[in-house]
């Protein structure tokens, strides 16, 4: 069992292959972890399809399992893992984050309050919102 951390909740999955060369997940787990679905045109999420590279090491095997780490890097997004290769982070890349900010649309997020109740920034839509950070340290 390994743990995959994305912008959503941590996901615990059994990899579809050894993790020493990549992060192979079954077709269904790819979708659970990333929202991308394997289709004839590539890996797709909503209207966006990322074609698979035609050359080099394949990202998909005969069973439809995908090396998600290689796919993530193919999209120019960071992948990091611990030394044991049991915890993986599929993060958002700088290009995606910068492009989001350049639209001036406030990036949405969901975070817990002290009691663990989740709140989304977009629930405040219709008001002027001062989003302010602080820390104890």
């Amino acid at each position, binding site marked *: 069992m390994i*743990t995959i*951390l994305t*912008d959503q909740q*941590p996901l615990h999955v059994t990899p579809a292959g050894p993790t020493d060369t990549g992060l192979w997940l079954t077709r269904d787990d790819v979708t659970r972890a990333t929202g991308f679905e394997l289709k004839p045109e590539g890996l797709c999420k909503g209207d966006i399809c990322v074609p698979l590279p035609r050359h080099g090491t394949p990202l998909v095997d005969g069973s439809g399992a995908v090396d998600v780490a290689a796919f993530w890097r193919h999209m120019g*997004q*960071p*992948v*990091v*893992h*611990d*030394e*044991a290769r049991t*915890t993986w*982070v599929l*993060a*958002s*890349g*700088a290009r995606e*984050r*910068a492009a*989001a*900010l*350049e639209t*001036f*649309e*406030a*990036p*949405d*997020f969901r*975070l*817990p*309050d*002290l009691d663990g109740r989740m*709140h989304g*920034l*977009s629930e*405040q*839509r*219709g*008001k*002027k*919102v*001062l*989003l*302010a*950070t*602080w*820390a*104890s*340290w």
Partner: protein
Amino acid sequence: MWQKVYEDFKDRGFTIVSVAMDTPEAARRFIEAAQPGYLTLIDRDHHVSALYNMLNVPEAVWIDETGRIVRPPENAGWFDGFRKRNRTTGEMPEVEAQLMATAKTVYMDAVRDWAANGAASRHVLDAAAMSRQLRKPDDDIALAHAHFRLGGHLLRSGKDAAARPHFEEARRLHPQSWNIWRQTHSRNEMGFASGPEFWARVDALGERRYYEKVNIEGMP
């Protein structure tokens, strides 16, 4: 610090979302002591820092009724006076205390002006000014946040030793981030990451600010 402006304008289409770049354990006593009426959220993985490319606290973003940013992340009115504090006695030179008070007042007045006047406020930035002021993340910053996220998860899973190299890598990749540095650095008995290494790092700034200058008229 925001309670007054919140109370004064909460019935006029204005609210505050406060986000602690912190663990719930460390943030709890401050929130319970302040009992603010506005939303207080806990961001132990600094997700908001990564999304908005923030560097320090306090920073604030102004977001209008439609969800559009009208002032990008910036220092929320703090001034570097603490650097002139006598490090033995804790004494603050009067002139620095004055500048700190001025910075806070100028920022708070700007927030109040926006809370009252919305889009008509002179502190709302147009697209050109927004673009100039917006800090965009680069690859190292994005990678730093990924390492920080991994380190945080490992730490919470009891794997302190496994977490450490990822925190170090996050600090190395994103040296401008005080949020990452202080969150991942050892604390004193008061819970502050303000030991000799912190001061050495602050001193190394030289003429550069710890709290960056805010682009509002009258700001020291």
